């Protein structure tokens, strides 16, 4: 949801309504000896309009449940939700004369503050995060498919390592002098023994399998990167650099692919995080909104009745 120039009409209309409401409130507030009351005519009007806006905003959820119903384009509903929902807060404040009132109304106002704030936060997140999402996740997939894709990546990594190991075991003593020199100068890291002598390839094969089992598989098989060193891009790059030193150049393309697999997993984790950020606030906003509507309706009934 991008809040841009296409929202201008909504913005102007909302600002107009708010201005009118405030303009009416000032003389009303000043003219009321005991201060503005929700039960007064104007107060009731503020309350009714504010609650109507809240109800409309709440109906978006229902609208989304029936996406093919031709009851207006969903984007109009969304804009209405955004701007009328936003307007409902000052109107309710005007309705209560900026007082939280009794026990029920106090609960209501706190609920409303949380709903309103979470809504503002959600609008801001949905304004900015999609752009970050697009820019940072070129390999984005469907959210529900992430687990499956992760499984495929793990299989792909196993296949790549298997290919390398098969090649290495059939290539004993084929390491060139240059390879050995490069390996020897790289030093030891990640518990990898540097290449030396004629057994370089067998050692490399063993090491590669160890890296797969100890580092890559745990990283690919589980969501997130908690407790796994290659979750960090720098650490991952260092590990793959070391593996390249260890292996003959003919197998470097496999290592590149393996590194890409890990990068893709990193993107999946990032996508999961973005998705949680984009939609996580709804876990607060939606249930509290319904609670607010129910309590608001209860408050209205009680206020009118008594």
């Amino acid at each position, binding site marked *: 949801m991008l809040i841009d120039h296409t929202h201008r009409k909504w913005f102007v209309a909302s600002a107009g309504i708010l201005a009118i409401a405030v303009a009416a409130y000032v003389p009303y507030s000043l003219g009321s000896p005991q201060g503005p009351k929700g039960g007064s005519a104007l107060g009731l009007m503020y309350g009714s309009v504010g609650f109507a806006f809240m109800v409309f905003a709440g109906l978006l959820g229902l609208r989304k449940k029936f996406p093919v119903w031709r009851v207006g384009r969903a984007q109009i509903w969304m804009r209405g939700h955004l701007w009328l929902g936003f307007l409902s807060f000052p109107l309710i404040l005007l309705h209560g004369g900026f007082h939280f009132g009794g026990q029920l109304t106090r609960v209501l106002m706190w609920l409303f503050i949380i709903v309103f704030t979470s809504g503002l936060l959600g609008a801001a997140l949905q304004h900015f995060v*999609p*752009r970050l999402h697009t820019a940072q996740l070129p390999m984005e997939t469907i959210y529900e498919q992430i687990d499956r894709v992760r499984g495929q990546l793990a299989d792909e990594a196993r296949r790549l390592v298997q290919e390398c190991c098969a090649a290495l075991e059939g290539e004993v003593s084929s390491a060139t002098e240059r390879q050995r020199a490069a390996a020897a100068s790289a030093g030891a890291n990640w518990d990898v023994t540097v290449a030396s002598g004629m057994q370089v390839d067998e050692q490399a094969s063993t090491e590669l399998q160890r890296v797969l089992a100890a580092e890559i598989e745990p990283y690919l098989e589980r969501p997130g990167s908690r407790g796994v060193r290659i979750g960090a891009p720098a650490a991952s790059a260092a590990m793959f650099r070391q593996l390249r030193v260890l292996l003959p150049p003919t197998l470097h393309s496999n290592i590149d692919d393996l590194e890409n697999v890990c990068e893709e997993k990193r993107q999946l984790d990032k996508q999961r995080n973005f998705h949680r950020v984009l939609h996580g606030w709804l876990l607060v906003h939606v249930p509290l909104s319904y609670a607010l509507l129910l309590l608001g309706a209860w408050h209205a009934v009680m206020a009118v009745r008594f």
Partner: protein
Amino acid sequence: MSTKPGADIQFTIDGTSVSVPAGTTIFDAARLNGIPIPTLCHQQNETPVGVCRVCVVDIGQRVYAASCIRQAEPGMNVKTCSEPVKAARHTLIELLMSDHPKPCARQQHSGDCELERLAAATGVEQPRFPKRTTPRGKDDSSAVISVDHEACILCDRCVRGCDDTRHNWVLARRGKGYQAGIAFDTNLPMAESSCVSCGECMVSCPTGALTNKRVVGTELGEGEVLDPAELLPLPIFQNVSGTFLELNQKAVVKRHYRAGEIICREGDFGSTAFYILEGKAEVFLASPMAHVQTDGTGRGFFRKLKSMLSPREEHRRSEESDRPFIPIDASVDLPYDRPIAELAPDDLFGEMTCMSYYPRSATVRAKTDCVMLEMLRNVLDILQRNKTFRAQLERNYRARALDSHLRSVPIFSSLTKDFIDHLRDRVELIRFSPGQVICRQGETADSFYLVRIGFVKVSEDRPGGELILAYLARGGYFGEIALLSGNPRTATCTALDHVEVVKITHPDFELMLERFPEVRAKLEAIAQERVQENRKRTSQLQTLPVDQFLANGLMEAQSLLVLDLDRCTRCDQCVRACADAHDGVSRLVREGLRFDKYLVATSCRQCRDPLCMVGCPVGSIRRRNSLEVIIEDWCIGCGLCATNCPYGNINLHPFPVELDDPTHPGRKIASTRVKATSCDLCHDHAEPSCVYACPHDAAHRVNPPEFFAGLLKQ
């Protein structure tokens, strides 16, 4: 010295005195007296030519003589295995082996490559001479015979087999020196030549240059296996090489079916064709004759879309086909109103399934007790090239199918019986192999073509590459634009698979237009439409950076579902709306190609190059003139279009139907049948549901050239 023909002559071979009739060659004289002389180019049933020189013998003259062509003379002293002769032969074999792929295909398959066996017998292991550096290539175009020019020793046995033994006159020598080789017709690929696949060349070849192709699954599992002695007396196998049939035993079996027994079912994948020897069979479509209609239910605001099956009479769509016949993979077409027809002895069905592995287009059931030959591709290919069989097939087609085939094309529906009778003996059935050009852009037009079997690609050569204009299936036609305008051909038509077309020559075409002005009017209107559509495409190509668009297939699209990823919160409301609108079966996936900040979602693009159409066994998926894809009533739900769509945009939608209960005749059982569906743009509504339901203004249906052109200008 002159000798009377027929009189015996005396001479000596390797110290043995022999007596043979005058005119006998030294080779035959030696063979008659049990003295072996090795040879490669000579075999008993062919005229000797003496090209390999392996059979050289010393006759006491300045040079050695090729024994296969040199006639014996009285008093001649022939040495066949003296050391100098053996040395000369050794050198010759070494020279031949230096260019020979060792082991060649024949040696690998059966271990009887004559050259390699001779080399082993004469002790030639590693030739001293260098191998040739320029490859001579292979020809794998034939379905049954593999040609490996590398293994050819230019012995001419195949040429003599083809010309002298079979009188087919297809094979000949081409080129000189290192360029020399065997050629089919005017050096065409074997499958494109006039070769009838009799197999004689392959049987004659001493090496692995011409071998029997071992296609996958050359044996049929069950059935009564017929040996060549039983097959050759059948008229359809007349002139087929017995050795070839021997090599392909089990690729053709005889089957007996009882009345009512199902022979093959529509939608099933198979690899065989059937030829009816005795009895009659019914061919029909069991799938409901209906298309998927997505329509609104409920009223006003709460209208919901629902998918249902509706036949043409209940729900007429714009530009829906009004073809009275449904094309199937048999010699007959099925009437739309009652899709059932009868197949009789000498009818062949399942050709497209067998040759191109398409799904079965119809269900065939034995009407009476039947005897059929079921055959695999290698045998069918020989038959289709067999002159006798071709003649019979053409006879059957002219007599029984030409009428319905012509009438199945709406523009020809007004042709009178007498004119069809006139055409009956004048049309020509021509076969084309995959990739073969039927007519080329710029050529002078001489004929009009009607597709009988297979798929034809119509394309235009452009500076940037080939631009595909259309795919034509059975019932499609081409060649009318150039004939009507008198200009050269405007497009190239190429066989996509095994294609058979009905060729109507220019004079007959003119006569038809003269006698039936309404056919001329309809053809001219369609030609005009096609020309305009081609122009439109060309102008679009000229105004856009083609490479970028062609690479992504976007230029081929007419309508794209594009998601603005900067606005999209990945809430999947679009997917939910699509699924809700189509009974829970979403026709879009929110994944696909990215272009800048836009995602081209996986949803029917209404391609201009609709690959989904290629292979439809009943030709039920086609394009409207507005270029939208339409799936006609007779879709059998085989799913090939869904497989062929490169973008995964066609789905199969299950519908409940009632079918005959095979165990309780007369009773019905509940079952499901699938029909192919693609995005219908929710045409019952003003806006597609996916776009309508997007709360973030991120989903849009766009015309790609306009949309991306605007984007590129920014």
